[in-house]
Structure formats: structure tokens, C-alpha cells
């Protein structure tokens, strides 16, 4: 187990370093600047602004300052949200995005595993086929289509739920965004769980359990589910990436004050520090989730831990 973790860290840490370095360099060689406006600034003002933000220093010094700040949790000033530092925006937005992603995962996991188990009970039967088609469609439903559709039906036509906004974290405001975000992940998990279970249910120890007269439900829960969840565990990393990416759209559609929405605004307005911070932060989060996936993997299948 420890050997796997060490080996993973050996890839994860250089990856992280490369991400930071490359995105920093990319941002600095970019044509066009954050102070480009419809009316050009006069050179003196431009120089003063560049000086105030340290953009007139040598590149290596800028990188050094950035890394030093990063180590202290300081991502620099936001160039678009002038009154905020990027750190402020992250502190405001990240909890919203993580709540959204966490809730979506909490919905998607049981839903996907249940659907996958139901489908795997009778491979090839009509339940299996209907569920797997539904899972394929769910996996491919872009949240920017489901989001507006859910709003159209449940908010505008039926009037049951609010159209958008955070509402201070009120569950009624969260329901539709979480569903829109959870559906693709639930579909992918259902497909993986079904594949894992179909293989496991065909194995000898399950046949033995059946021969001993155990009920199907007991076999599923006690003997088959744990090894069958190995593919699901290895999906935790990509799922986290998918949820963070999906959150960008969902936050935009539902006007939620999450980090993803700031990221889009930053990207549209060339707010380098903001975009850079989100890319680095999310790369770190996804590497972290890949590590968690490895731990889960070893716990579910002790043979892999060697």
C-alpha cells in the first residue's frame, strides 16, 4: 500500500510542478493584456498599472514571487475584480463549488451503484437493457442542456423551485443544480458497477454462496459488491474532474457564486492570476482524488495492494 502511494506521489508531485510552471509561462507569453480596454490607456497609466502589479519585473522574478505567494496561500490580486484578491475569490467560491460537487457525488454514487446492481442481476434482460440505455444517455447529457431543461420544467412551467441563485445555501435552490451535475456521473458509475458486478457474479465464490442457499440480495451485498466496486473506485479521480468541470457550467446556468463562475469570468476577461489559480487548485484537487482512488482500490481489492 505504502509503495503504491509513494510511487503515485512520485508522478503526482512533478506533474503538479509542471502544471504550475507551464500555466505560469503560458499566461505570461499570452498576447493581449489585462489592461486592454476599448479605449487604450495612455502609456504612463499603463506603466503605472504594470508596475503596481509587478508585471514590469523580469519573468524569473515574477515566477519566484508567485511561488512564494502560492506557498503562503496568496494567489495575487484579481485583475478584473479589482477590489478582491484571487485568494478572496477562492475562499468565497470554493466552498460553494465543493458543496455542489460533494452533494452531486453523494447523489450519484448510491444512484449509480443501485442502478448497476439492478441491471447486473439479470444480464441481457429488459431491465438491464433499459437501465443501461438510460445510463448511456445520462452519461452523455451535457449539464448545459439538462440545467436549462430542468429550470424550464420545474421552475418556469410548474413553478415548484426557484429559477436560479444561491439563496444562502437553501436546499430548494440546490436541488436542480445538483441533479443536473449528478446525472452524467451517476450514468458512468452505473455502467462501471454493472460491468464489475456482471464479472463478479459469474465467479466461483458466488456460485458457492448460491449453492449454500443464500438469498440473492445477501450474495450481492456480502459477497459480490465489494470486489465489483473496484472499477467504480478507480473512477473516483475522473469523476472528481468531471464534477469540477460540470460545476463551471452549472454555476453559470444557475447563477451560483462558485469558483467555476469566477473562472469563466476570468477566462473571458483575461484575468491571468484568477485563471492560473483555478487551474492549479483544480489540478491539485484532482491529483488528490486520484490518490484517494488508489487508497480505495487497495481497500476494496487487497490483492492490488502488494
Amino acid at each position, binding site marked *: 500500500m505504502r509503495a503504491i502511494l509513494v510511487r503515485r506521489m512520485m508522478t503526482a508531485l512533478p*506533474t503538479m510542478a509542471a502544471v504550475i510552471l507551464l500555466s505560469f509561462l503560458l499566461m505570461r507569453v499570452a498576447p493581449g493584456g489585462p489592461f486592454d480596454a476599448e479605449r487604450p490607456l495612455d502609456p504612463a497609466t499603463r506603466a503605472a498599472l504594470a508596475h503596481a502589479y509587478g508585471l514590469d519585473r523580469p519573468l524569473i522574478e515574477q515566477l519566484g514571487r508567485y511561488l512564494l505567494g502560492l506557498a503562503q496561500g496568496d494567489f495575487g490580486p484579481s485583475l478584473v475584480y479589482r477590489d478582491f484578491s484571487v485568494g478572496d475569490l477562492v475562499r468565497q467560491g470554493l466552498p460553494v463549488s465543493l458543496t455542489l460537487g460533494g452533494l452531486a457525488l453523494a447523489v450519484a454514487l448510491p444512484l449509480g451503484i443501485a442502478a448497476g446492481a439492478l441491471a447486473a442481476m439479470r444480464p441481457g434482460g429488459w431491465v438491464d437493457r433499459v437501465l443501461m440505455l438510460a445510463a448511456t444517455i445520462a452519461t*452523455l447529457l451535457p449539464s448545459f442542456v439538462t440545467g436549462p431543461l430542468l429550470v424550464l420544467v420545474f421552475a418556469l412551467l410548474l413553478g415548484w423551485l426557484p429559477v436560479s441563485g444561491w439563496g444562502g445555501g437553501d436546499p430548494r435552490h440546490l436541488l436542480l443544480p445538483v441533479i443536473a451535475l449528478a446525472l452524467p456521473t451517476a450514468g458512468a458509475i452505473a455502467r462501471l458497477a454493472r460491468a464489475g458486478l456482471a464479472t463478479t457474479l459469474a465467479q466461483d465464490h458466488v456460485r458457492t454462496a448460491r449453492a449454500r442457499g443464500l438469498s440473492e440480495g445477501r450474495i450481492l451485498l456480502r459477497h459480490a459488491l465489494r470486489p465489483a466496486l473496484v472499477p467504480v473506485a478507480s473512477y473516483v479521480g475522473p469523476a472528481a474532474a468531471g464534477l469540477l468541470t460540470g460545476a463551471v457550467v452549472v454555476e453559470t446556468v444557475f447563477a451560483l457564486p462558485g469558483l467555476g463562475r469566477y473562472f*469563466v469570468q476570468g477566462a*473571458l476577461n483575461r484575468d491571468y492570476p484568477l485563471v492560473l489559480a483555478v487551474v492549479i487548485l*483544480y489540478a491539485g484537487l484532482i491529483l488528490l482524488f486520484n490518490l484517494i482512488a488508489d487508497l480505495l482500490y487497495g481497500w476494496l481489492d487487497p490483492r492490488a495492494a502488494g
Partner: protein
Amino acid sequence: MRPGVLPLAIVAGIALAAILGPLLLPWSYDAIDWSAVRAPPLSPGHLLGTDAVGRDLLARTLAGTRVTLAVAGAAAGVALAIGTLWGMIAGWCGGRIDEAMMRIVDALYALPFMFVVILLMVVFGRSIVLVFAGIGAVEWLTMARVVRGEVLHLRHRPFILAAEAAGAGTSAIMTRHLLPNLAGVAIAYLLLTVPQVVMVESFLSFLGLGVQEPMTSLGILVHDGAEDMDVAAATLLVPGAVLVTLLVALTRAGEALRDRLAP
């Protein structure tokens, strides 16, 4: 009917409509009909109605589908080229080169690639060429893994050994013997890459970071439709339905072909 035929027919139908349709319609995708703003579906002259500024929804959907498919095809082609080359070199050379090359693939897999594409957009400006080059450059990873696996499997087969014994050079073996045997699997994964790319393109366009007005794409149409859905639901439903149908049909076709080749 064999699995995969129906989805493939649906894809072909949508592609054909997107290519030929605009030639048959009286309205161009950016022509404004001031006499019919937000016309409902089945209005005279506008089969699916019009959008908020009176542009024909059917013409716009067809034009948007065409752009989306063109971007997706080009990007998937880039992914196919990079992935096949990378996988072939890694699989053929083996040893340390293979190890290093696949480590790079693993490392890239762990990246939040949508954010990397957006980063590229921000840096190099929003051009359509960059949209598909950027997407293609991140979508080749799966292709590289699959091709490498196939090459490892093929390289010790007798016909390859025979070619080597007969003195064929590496490049000749790769182009004459390996590539033709890789083609089937590569095409199956190409079919599976296209919907991924369609998704990325619509995602970016929806956020305003991909294809730019006055050009249109399914992502832009869904975005515009979502803005206007309370008064003209069709502007959201039509492009949304086309997008989802296209994604599902492409994926089903790709999966059917993949399962047939590698059961």
C-alpha cells in the same frame, strides 16, 4: 439488424441534413426575418419557428450542427494522428522509452483537461482553429493507450517477425504491416472520440469561449435558447435534442464497433 447500424444511420442522417439542408432552405442561418420574431414552430415559412431576432431556427440548427461536426471531425483527426503515432512508437520501442511515454500519458490524464483547453483559449485568443487543435491535443490520450496495447499484442505475431526477418525497415513494418491491422480499433475509438469532442466544443461555445458569433454551433444555440426559453422553448429544445441524439448515436455506434472488434 446488427447492433451499431441504427445509430450509425442516425449519425449519417444528421450529417447529411446538416450538409445539404442549408442549400434547400430559403433562409440562411444569419438572415433576419423582421416580420416573424420568435415565431412558434410550424409558422408559415419557418418550420421550427424563429429565435429572438427572427432568425430561422431550422436553418440555424442545421448550420450549427455542421460547424459542430466539422470541429469535432477535425479535432478527432488531430487526436487520431497524435494518439496513433505516440502509441505506435511506445509500443514498438518498448522498454524505457515505452515507460517514459506512457508515464507522460498517465500524468496528462490526471490533469483537469477542460481547464487546460480554456487556459489555451485565454492565452492564444479564441480562434476556431485553436478550438479544435486544443481539443485534439488533449483527446489523444485514450487513443495512445489503445494503440500501444494493440501494438504490444501484434509485434510478436509471426507475420511481423517474418517481415523483420526478411529485412524490412522499421518504417516499412509500421506503415505496411502495423497500421492496416490497427485501423479497425483506431476507427472504433475515433467514433468514440468524436462525441467527446462534440461535448467539449459545445461546452466551450456555451460558455462563450469556443466558436464565436456570427458563426454558430450547437453549444451557442443551446446557450441562446436557454436565455430565451421562457418565451420560445423550441429555441432550447431543438438544438438540445439534436446535440443529445448526436452524442448518444455516435457513442452507441463506436461501442458496437469496439465490442465487435475486441469482444
